[in-house]
């Protein structure tokens, strides 16, 4: 049986431009999108970043099946976040849809009151928060479905970090794939002994998962010993001068252009509010308002 064992796996076609992109460029794009989304919180700026994310995902030609998992996670998180924000924040707006005061606890010392206020502003802010979440998750989805674990290890080695860093990252990726196999095998073994793992009362589920951790831990210990022996046996020292890097992973013109563009986006997001008092989404706001009128 083929299990999905790699944490990172490039699903995009080999000729898609994102496959030629340097992994460090992609990491930089994700970092910039995260920073600007955290910095500029108004709905128009967020909408601009969302448009950039959607464009990246579309240009990467990532199949929907590959990002489906991210989208499903997103949907769940959005529902939770929207409900929590609407029910827990108190922000008066121009229109109030619902206002209630629920006394949760009343004693001689005072009352614990839950003030529910649903206004047009609560809803607008909740949607803006959702949009920011979409940007963060789509940026990560773009990176994870267009980059494989090999690219990441190359990228780290390109940075000329100590061999230990790239070796540890490579081993973590390998350990994940092996541990996934082990997890399924151990769970099957428990089921074969009459334990319906993941069913029944919560205490039994917890107990079963504690049992499950025992062989996983034992296997990790045994394998760590074997892997470290295998690395040593091949005479791979962690510190050694004069190492070469087999794969030249050059920065292409597109990498420099994208780095420049996203660098400019970051600078603009940080500086425009200071210089003009408006956010980077101001032109979009002006456009929307013009069309609305």
């Amino acid at each position, binding site marked *: *049986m*083929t299990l999905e*064992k790699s944490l990172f796996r490039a699903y995009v076609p080999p000729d898609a431009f994102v496959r030629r992109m340097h992994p460090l460029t992609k990491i930089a794009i994700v970092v910039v999108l995260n920073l600007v989304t955290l910095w500029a919180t108004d709905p128009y700026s967020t909408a601009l970043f969302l448009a950039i994310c959607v464009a990246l995902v579309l240009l990467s030609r990532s199949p929907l099946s590959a990002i489906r998992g991210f989208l499903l996670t997103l949907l769940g998180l959005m529902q939770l976040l929207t409900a929590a924000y609407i029910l827990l924040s108190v922000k008066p707006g121009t229109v109030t849809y619902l206002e209630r005061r629920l006394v949760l606890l009343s004693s001689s010392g005072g009352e614990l009151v839950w003030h529910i206020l649903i206004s047009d502003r609560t809803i607008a802010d909740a949607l803006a928060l959702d949009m920011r979440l979409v940007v963060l998750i789509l940026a990560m989805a773009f990176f994870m479905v267009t980059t*494989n*674990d*090999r690219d990441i*290890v190359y990228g780290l080695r390109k940075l000329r970090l100590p*061999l230990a860093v790239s*070796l540890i990252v*490579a*081993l973590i*990726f*390998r350990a994940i*794939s*092996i541990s996934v196999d*082990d997890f399924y*095998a*151990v769970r*099957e*073994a*428990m*089921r*074969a*002994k*009459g*334990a*319906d793992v993941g069913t029944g009362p919560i205490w039994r589920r917890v107990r079963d998962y504690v*049992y*499950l951790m*025992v*062989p996983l831990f*034992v*296997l990790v210990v*045994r*394998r760590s010993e*074997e*892997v*470290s*022996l*295998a*690395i*040593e*046996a*091949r*005479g*791979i*020292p962690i510190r*050694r001068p*004069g*190492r*070469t*890097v*087999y*794969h*030249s992973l050059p920065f292409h013109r597109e990498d420099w252009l994208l780095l420049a563009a996203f660098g400019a986006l970051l600078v603009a997001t940080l500086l425009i509010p200071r210089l003009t008092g408006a956010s980077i989404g101001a032109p979009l706001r002006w456009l929307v308002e013009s069309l609305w009128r």
Partner: protein
Amino acid sequence: MSLIRVESLAWHYEGAAEPALRGVSFEVERGEFVAVMGRTGAGKSTLCRCLNALIPRHSRGTMEGRVLVAGLDTARSDFYEIAGRVGMVFQDPETQFIMMTVEDEIALGLENRGVEPQAIRAAVERALAAVGLPQSYLGKPPTELSGGQKQRVAIAAMLALEPEILVLDEPTSDLDPAGKAEVFAILERLKAERAATVILVSHDSEQVARYADRVLVLDQGRVALAGPTAEVLGRVRELAALGIAAPQVAQLGFLLGWPRPAGDPRAALQRLHGARLAPPAAPLARPESEPAVKVQGLEHAYPDGTLALRGVDLELRRGEYVAIVGSNGSGKTTLAKHLNGLLRPTRGSVWVAGVEAARVRPSELARRVGYCFQNPDHQLFCQTVEEELAFGPRHLGLSEAEVRARVERVLETVGLAPWRNEHPFFLGKGQRQRLAVGAALTIEPEIIIVDEPTTGQDHAMCEEIMALLDRLNQAGHTVVIITHDMELVAEHCRRVLVMADGRIIADGSPAQVFADAEVTARARIEPPQVARLSLALDPAQPPALSVPELARRLGAPIDEAALQGIRLHTAGA
């Protein structure tokens, strides 16, 4: 000067009760192929690690004597200098890979040596060609290759560094017959084309007889036997006392009283030329009991679309002793996992003791079908041996008194009573395997399925485990084993199901299956040496399944004293 010179080598792991090596001395000339044999714990792997300086570098302990490789004292020289001269391949191919593609894996050691990228490319291609893999494999993830291919990549990664000595520590014990054949073909090629110096640790005396120039047998850390291969493997009685099974033809020679029995099947055939082969005793009939398992039109497709079973029909009767054989990916384990409900049919049906497996939960089926996985470490969850044995019955809701009674019975059956309070983590592999079988037994299932019960174990441990399964079968349990070991099938099972491409392509007694050249070729299984020898002597007769059987059919009077000479001695559990 010898390429390897080991002088009075002793090694005592820190905290161990006994030394792992005690006064080992030997020499290896350039271009020699030396096999190291011995039961589990004899010191074989420790010796290998001393050869490439992993000991004392990687382990704590006390060392005496010395190891010289090309004149360099391994304990006092630069470790990386020694590691560059002595390449090592381990048993489990999974744990040897670091990088994500075959190309990167082979290149890693070269990068580390500062080889220029253009030269690395050429070296990677040469190494891959040396192990007979096409260039199209360069971009493949090593983890997605078959077992044999993985070991070939591990060997290629080592060859790329052009070591003077290759040390292979049981490189084939986790592989199916096809994988073993691949690895041995590479070793044969390296020996013929490169005059490579090879140190091979193996339990497979038949392959040792075929490839090795000399054999070194270790026992309790000492060299017990050493010499040219034919001479050592001909000392059948001494090998058996050391827990090593000589090649079957050598055992046959011993029973027939040949003055110098050897492991060469061609020599044995020449010696037996013209001998008359008597017909075998009537085989045991299949039990006339009711069906324990009924499988009809079973198909199974995994979520990725792989069609692992393509229409399997099968009936197992109560009390049968059945082997399921075939190469990796043929569908053996997929079929077995349907019998205890771990997998659900995509099409068709499976009935176990009159109950349709798909209609009950696996935990319900666990009462009827015990399943032992290949790796004992996947199925031991508890803090003590006793708790482990009690795990299944407790999950089935049995009373504590009943659980205790079953645990006591099974502790005796699997011979683990002295270790009842030991943590399973600290047991030896053979003991862990017996504990895994025992943990299935406490459920008292009608059917017990054991997946690869003997993989990676020495012959003496294999015999212990098989003796346990024999006793269970005699007590009325239906026993199903999945295995690549044809000697085990021949000597223990009464029925063989041969699988290929998700179908049962043959179903019969071991003798019927081994006599069918088309089936054995298609399923890539190699009948035991005695079966091949008897078929070569008289193709019209059913093949012999064991050494004593062939000796008897050749007219030799075999008494208990003679049989004692080939019976393996265990070193205690």
